[in-house]
């Protein structure tokens, strides 16, 4: 049986959304893990959801990055366990050095909530394996600090190793270097993305259904976990 853990910190906001979507659309029933629980051994994959952990004090994700549960998560990461950080989750992963680079204030200096068009650059991670390279998907963003930056040398390395997963097209929402919206680590098991894939999934109502291909982020996870 596949066990996926969704980390919950003081200030996390999107854990229930992620849980709902994984349950309804990927056939996975994840468990919410309160941050003080530090025995992560029994889980096959992790999601760090969006929110404002610790009120974004100091820098977004900075405080959560130093919590004991993240220290344990680093051990899991070394064992190639798939880990997805969404929005604040991505910020926590870069602050804890599980992912390269940094996320800083949007170039507009304002929080932005809108749909973003993304192009898929890499389809080899556990969260992107079912996509086609070059396909365009549409996922809502909602953040004030989503501008991805890195030094030139590290950036060259990222590109060489194909660690850039999604890039903004049509409009660079936040001024990220090279329009980067999602990256992974060298190993390819830890992924961080600013857009919220759980929100791209079908709205509970009529209207244009924006879900279709975006669900593959979660279905890719299930596929890669059942390969074990």
């Amino acid at each position, binding site marked *: 049986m596949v066990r996926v853990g969704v980390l919950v910190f*003081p200030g996390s906001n999107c854990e229930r*959304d992620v849980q709902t979507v994984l349950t309804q659309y990927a056939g996975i029933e994840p468990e919410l893990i309160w941050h003080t629980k530090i025995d992560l051994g029994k889980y096959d994959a992790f999601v760090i959801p969006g929110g404002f952990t610790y009120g974004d004090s100091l820098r977004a994700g900075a405080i959560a990055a130093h919590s004991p549960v993240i220290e344990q998560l680093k051990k899991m990461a070394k064992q190639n366990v798939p880990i997805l950080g969404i929005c604040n989750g991505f910020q926590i992963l870069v602050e804890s050095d599980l992912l390269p680079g940094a996320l800083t204030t949007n170039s507009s200096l304002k*929080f932005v*909530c809108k749909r973003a068009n993304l192009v898929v650059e890499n389809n080899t991670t556990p969260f992107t394996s079912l996509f086609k390279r070059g396909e365009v998907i549409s996922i809502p963003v*909602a953040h*004030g600090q989503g501008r991805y930056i890195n030094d030139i040398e590290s950036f060259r390395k990222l590109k060489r190793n194909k660690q850039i997963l999604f890039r903004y097209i049509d409009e660079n929402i936040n001024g990220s270097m090279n329009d980067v919206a999602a990256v992974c680590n060298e190993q390819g098991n830890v992924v961080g993305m600013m857009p919220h894939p759980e929100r791209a999934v079908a*709205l*509970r*109502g*009529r209207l244009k259904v924006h879900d279709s291909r975006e669900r593959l982020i979660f279905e890719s996870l299930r596929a890669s976990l059942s390969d074990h």
Partner: protein
Amino acid sequence: MSSITKAEDQYMRKKLRRKPSKFELDVISAEWSEHCSYKSSKKFIRKFPNQSKYVLQGVASDAALLDIGRGYVLAVHIESHNHPSAVEPYGGSATGVGGVIRDILSLGTRPIAILNALRFAPIDHISERQSQKSRWLLRNVTKGIADYGNCIGIPTVGGEMEFDSGFSNYCLVDVAAIGISKRNKIVPNTSNLGDVVLLVGGETGRDGIHGSSFASKELNSEDRSAVQIPDPFTEKLLIEGLLEAVDKGLIKAMKDLGGGGLSCCLSEISVMLSKGLEIDISKIHVKEDGMSPSEIMISESQERMLVVTSQKESKNLLKVLEKYNLRYSIIGSVKGKKNLVIRDRGKVIMNMPSLFICRAPLIDRRSAAPKSRSVKPVPQFGMRPTDIANNILQLLGNPNIAGKEWIYQQFDYDVGIRTTLKPGEADSSVISLENGKFLAIKLDGNSKQCNFDPYQGTLNVLSEVCRNIVSTGGNPVAIFDHLQFGSPERPEIFWAFKQTVQAIIDYCTFMDLPVVGGKVSFYNETSEGPIKHSPVIGAIGLIDRSEWIMQPGVSSDESIFIIGNTKDEMGGSEFYEATGNKENGRIPTVDLNVDRLNSKAVLKLIRGNVVRSLHDCSKGGLAISLCEMAMAGENGLQVYLDRVPNTCSTIYDLIFSESPSRYVVGTDDSDGVHRILSAIDGLKYSEIGTATSKGSDAILYHTKMGGPVTLSHKSMVRSYGRLGTIMEQNSLS
């Protein structure tokens, strides 16, 4: 500092039969402020209808709960922070969000959506200094609401704005919130002798002292000590911690601390529980040492909740609070005698019947209708098609009408994955509910029309807000309100308040709508005088099926119908205001029978599955409605204005009049629409045109115009984006 009047002082001495101490005076002062006691307004707002099959019976709380089916209940609250926001817009508006969220939390419901209604002086077109100030206020109010709401993870799903010179050097910031819970999980609000009383959340400090009495007098200077400081992270912990405690049955009663701080909270909860409270204020966790007992009692430090639990469950409650690192202090217990007893380090410094503190003597205010205004002659406007087109485009770019994207894109409107119709997408916000239904919710106001005639103006606002619910497919089930005026000590202001109340009573009684929540805010004045009468009305509607959710974008080849009659009713209209004709015209009047007939007709069309797009007519009239439908659908349209049912004297009246009770319907089954509407006795409707192809122009025809009025998609979108352009161009001010 006490704001007790001479009459209140005499009443107090008579009832108490002694002179109150300074401490007692400070406590009573806070609760007897207009803001907390409603001493001028209570007598009138008591008469609002508040019963319906949707209103939950037998609930002990400040506001009604709605039974929305399948075991779920809904709570709604609205609050404003006008005075603080005018001085410190960021903190004032942020704490406004905090306050209304805690109101929702008090009932044990989970807050699921926030809306706002904002009023400022114009951000353009008046003196540069004034516009700059308005832009500064708008910028910071938006950021205040955004930062707070986004941090606590509750979506801001909708809003409404009005710009009017009547708000110079001021602003109205209304925030509304809804919460949901299972019926059997709400806080029972009963209590027994010996129950434990705790203060949970932020520390008590000197911020916000005299906030409620500040709100009960005119704004004369920049009194910064009375502005409260926001901490949304603590609020988030309060939400999660207290809801977990409620879910575990650990909370017997709960109340948030808002205006008047502990003074109001303790006395009010004591009355609600019909029990006494004995509190020792030296036990309270404080921000700074050396605070006097008065300061502690009237402080309006934010993010604090009063919680009552049984002795038996108190350990379990503390475990939950500690899990979330929430600070708390055990400050007292529930007693049998219905007094509020306050101790300081064990010594009694106050001992008074709670009912006495809560029931400020009501004040009979004088009211007098203003002299009737003379109706000025109607102006002439350019009749060439290009003149008319330019006037439409200018109106589209008027900040009262233009797109509000610049504002709502700063709000996270998606968190919670319920938001089905997002801000700017349709006439009201629509969110999905746990019981499979959908909720439509909207706020509306129109200070221009309410100032012309508070009775008719308020009827118009009620008609408009309900129309906005129907336009997304909702069946209106409840109303809530925030009535905002200048000083009630001015007879013509108090007269306007009474007229507004009567309009709400009349409309809601006729439409069978209960008023489930609301507030009254007086003393909205600056050195320039009172604000225009600003009742803000909220409506809630239910949509049973997702197929019935409607939005305004027309698709190619749809046939366009209008329901409702258009008359010469340009008074208070956006067009007349924009063209310098503030004193001209008659304001629209609502015919209650027609209003109900037209709304029911639209709902019938929706149930008959013949509606593909839907929009109401309101600010800016029919011309604006049609442009908005074209832009939303990214399609052109051709409309034959001669076919619009009307009694108008000129083209301008026809296209810009804000006659109520009108809807524009797009359909791909015009036979079906005719069949359903023709069977409705007395309904005025007509087929007026068609939608054309993607990206095409919007074209209006009328035999009295020299030629067609043509509006390109590009020019409409450019005008409609003007509010964003103004704010971006002036980003440093």
